[in-house]
């Protein structure tokens, strides 16, 4: 073996091919089957996609690096289920490009945050977390409430999402900016289109408390309120995985 290596290390190409070969195996064995074994992701027929407003909020969550301190992955451990709710299923993040499972909980897990607190609470918390949780070390995000949400490119966002596999329809793409506005303006004519395209359960309300302007705060709160609510799969008895075709 060492004699073989003594000859191998005289050949650059031998070392290069050796490294590539040896280093490829792990990834091929562990990653490739995740795309082909369909039990990997459970079936959840009620799973819906993010609305344009929620997607915009998710992008703000990414932009501000929230994932560095908050996980969105409840592990299959008793204390986590009791603290946060039913453990996370793979299907719940199947439209998450990229996933935001996180790796650190400086703050609590957010996988089941949706509808746990009121919109008002979230807005107050974002403007200054210590107003509602005195011990909090979270940064203040007051600027979100005074920043107008950019909506003109939301159609492009949905289109790119469709390119990577999220089932957005042509109508959803065409109406993306209007739907973003409508979801945060319940009294406007645009509000109906949101429900029509994304389902009756879609929350349509002035998330930041101001019905007339569409701010980044609207988008972020809309996203936080949908966390864990895109499907009911996690609340149903386990077994959906085995019933897969």
């Amino acid at each position, binding site marked *: 073996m060492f004699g073989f290596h003594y000859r191998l290390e005289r050949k650059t190409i031998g*070392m290069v091919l050796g490294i*590539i070969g040896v*280093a490829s195996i792990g990834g091929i064995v562990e990653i490739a089957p*995740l795309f082909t074994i369909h039990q990997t992701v459970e079936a959840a027929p009620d799973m819906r996609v993010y609305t344009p407003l929620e997607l915009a909020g998710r992008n703000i969550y990414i932009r501000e690096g929230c994932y560095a301190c908050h996980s969105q992955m409840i592990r299959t451990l008793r204390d986590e289920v009791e603290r946060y709710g039913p453990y996370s299923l*793979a299907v719940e*993040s199947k439209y998450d490009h990229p996933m935001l499972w996180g790796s650190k909980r400086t703050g609590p897990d957010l996988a089941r945050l949706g509808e746990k607190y009121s919109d008002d609470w979230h807005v107050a918390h974002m403007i200054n977390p210590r107003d509602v949780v005195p*011990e909090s*070390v979270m940064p203040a995000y007051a600027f979100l409430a005074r920043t107008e949400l950019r909506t003109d490119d939301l159609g492009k966002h949905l289109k790119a999402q469709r390119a*990577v596999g999220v089932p957005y329809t042509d109508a959803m793409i065409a109406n993306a900016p209007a739907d973003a506005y409508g979801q945060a303006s319940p009294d406007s004519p645009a509000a109906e289109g949101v429900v029509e395209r994304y389902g009756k359960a879609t929350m349509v309300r002035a998330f930041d408390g101001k019905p007339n302007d569409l701010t980044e705060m609207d988008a972020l709160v809309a996203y936080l309120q949908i966390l864990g609510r895109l499907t009911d799969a996690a609340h149903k008895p386990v077994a959906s995985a085995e019933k897969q075709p």
Partner: protein
Amino acid sequence: MIGELTKSERQGALLILLALAVTGLAMAVGGSNDPLGTHGTLVMVVAIVGTFAVITGYYAPEPPESRLDSYYDTPTKFGIVAAMVWAVIAMAVGDWVAWLLAFPEWTFDAAWASFGRLRPVHTSGVIFGFGGNALIATSFYVMQRTSRARLPDQLSPWFVLFGYNLFCVIAATGYLMGVTQSKEYAEPEWYADIWLVIVWVTYFVLYLRTLNRRKEPHIYVSNWYYMAFILVVAMLHIVNNLAVPISWGSAKSYSLFAGVQDAMTEWWYGHNAVAFFLTSGFLGMMYYYMPKRAGRPIYSYRMSIISFWGITFFYMWAGSHHLHYTALPQWVQSLGMTFSVMLLVPSWVSAGNALMTLNGAWHKVRDDAVLRFMMVAAVFYGLSTFEGSFMAIRPVNALSHYTDWTVGHVHAGALGWVAMITFGAIYASVPWLWKRDGMYSAKLVEAHFWLSLAGTIIYVFAMWNSGIIQGLMWRTYNESGTLAYSFVDSLIAMHPYYIARAIGGVFFLLGAIIGFYNIWMTIRTASQAQSQAEPDYSAVGIEIPAVQPGR
């Protein structure tokens, strides 16, 4: 510097800079109301400044043929200084965000100054800015000497270094503007990723070209590690960053993968960024500088082989231990745990090989702070690889995951191993490169060593304590069978440790600043003392590689 390029290389540089300026202009126009446009302007300005620099030196006399008789070390010098600049900036940002966790008000009411945007400046700045520059700089130095061959040309090393630093600047400024993919340790967006691929391929080709010119029949073990670093990082980077931009005029893209597949790909990348960036590359560094400084050959050639291939093979399976008890299928978790435990063998073989190399030179370790940096690095390498394997065991991970223990573990590796071996290697190379007998001040090296060690220990102990307390509080039940502590209770318990950690960081940062000053003064006194340069040691014969493995 331009004077060191041949005429055709100067023309090549102008062409590259022109192409870069045009690309920058296209980005600036296409992304006029997007951060992409800001980065386009940045690229264009950099390219134009570079063009002027080349034009100014364009008619300087060509470098003499005699340059080919000595190694080409100017890029290494630049890389070392760049590494130290990044170290000071990124560690300062790191310490700032550490204080923010104890006192969240210590910042400005501005988007760029919030924890979430500053943190990746710290992580990328330290890993890619400091670590990457140090790796590229030392790899140029080491491959020339262990191959007894000069770099094949003068242009490509500069392209690699400047291109790489441009990537780092785009990354760091991007985070401040909110440009991020959110993939941990792979945050830069698609256009920065594409640029890095171009730079990286040039780096790899440069490495191969130098190796092919070598006058040593065997490729020295350092180069195996540097090659693994370059090759595997390329593999990881390309696969993990596959994404679809929303348009050519926008910085935003969406990852090709989603959910569980994305999580596995990300941690396959993330863990192996640790393996091949922060371990392989720096082992390459250690295998050259430690024996060289100690004046002892590597203890065992066979141990080098076993650990090299062991690390290259096992590490690639270990990423899934970041996803224990998650929605990732259990078979992948079990594979990840198994390989993580096995990984301890090649890791400790490496660490043992390094420490045994010091046999017969322990008096030097006592007297020489530079060698002591390297010794402590090897010890921390051993400690943190043990800790890593331990934390990858599922029930242990149940406690440690999501807590500060992970942060402590990472810093035991990053401060104790990566930074210490780098400081050791830099302190060894600076006098060699600038032709001095030693550093400007040996006392300051000594001070830097003790500050680094104290800082690391304070940091790691603080995080061990906070992490374990956190993990235990989250899972403690009271007598009535309900959870004993709220999340906020655990947060309050962290407060003293967060202060301690930030103080540890101050020590470490102070050490780095002293190191920077010491290096700067060594360079200054060198340039004053040596206006007439003596010939370099020869690339053709005299210099024998430090430690050619025995049979």
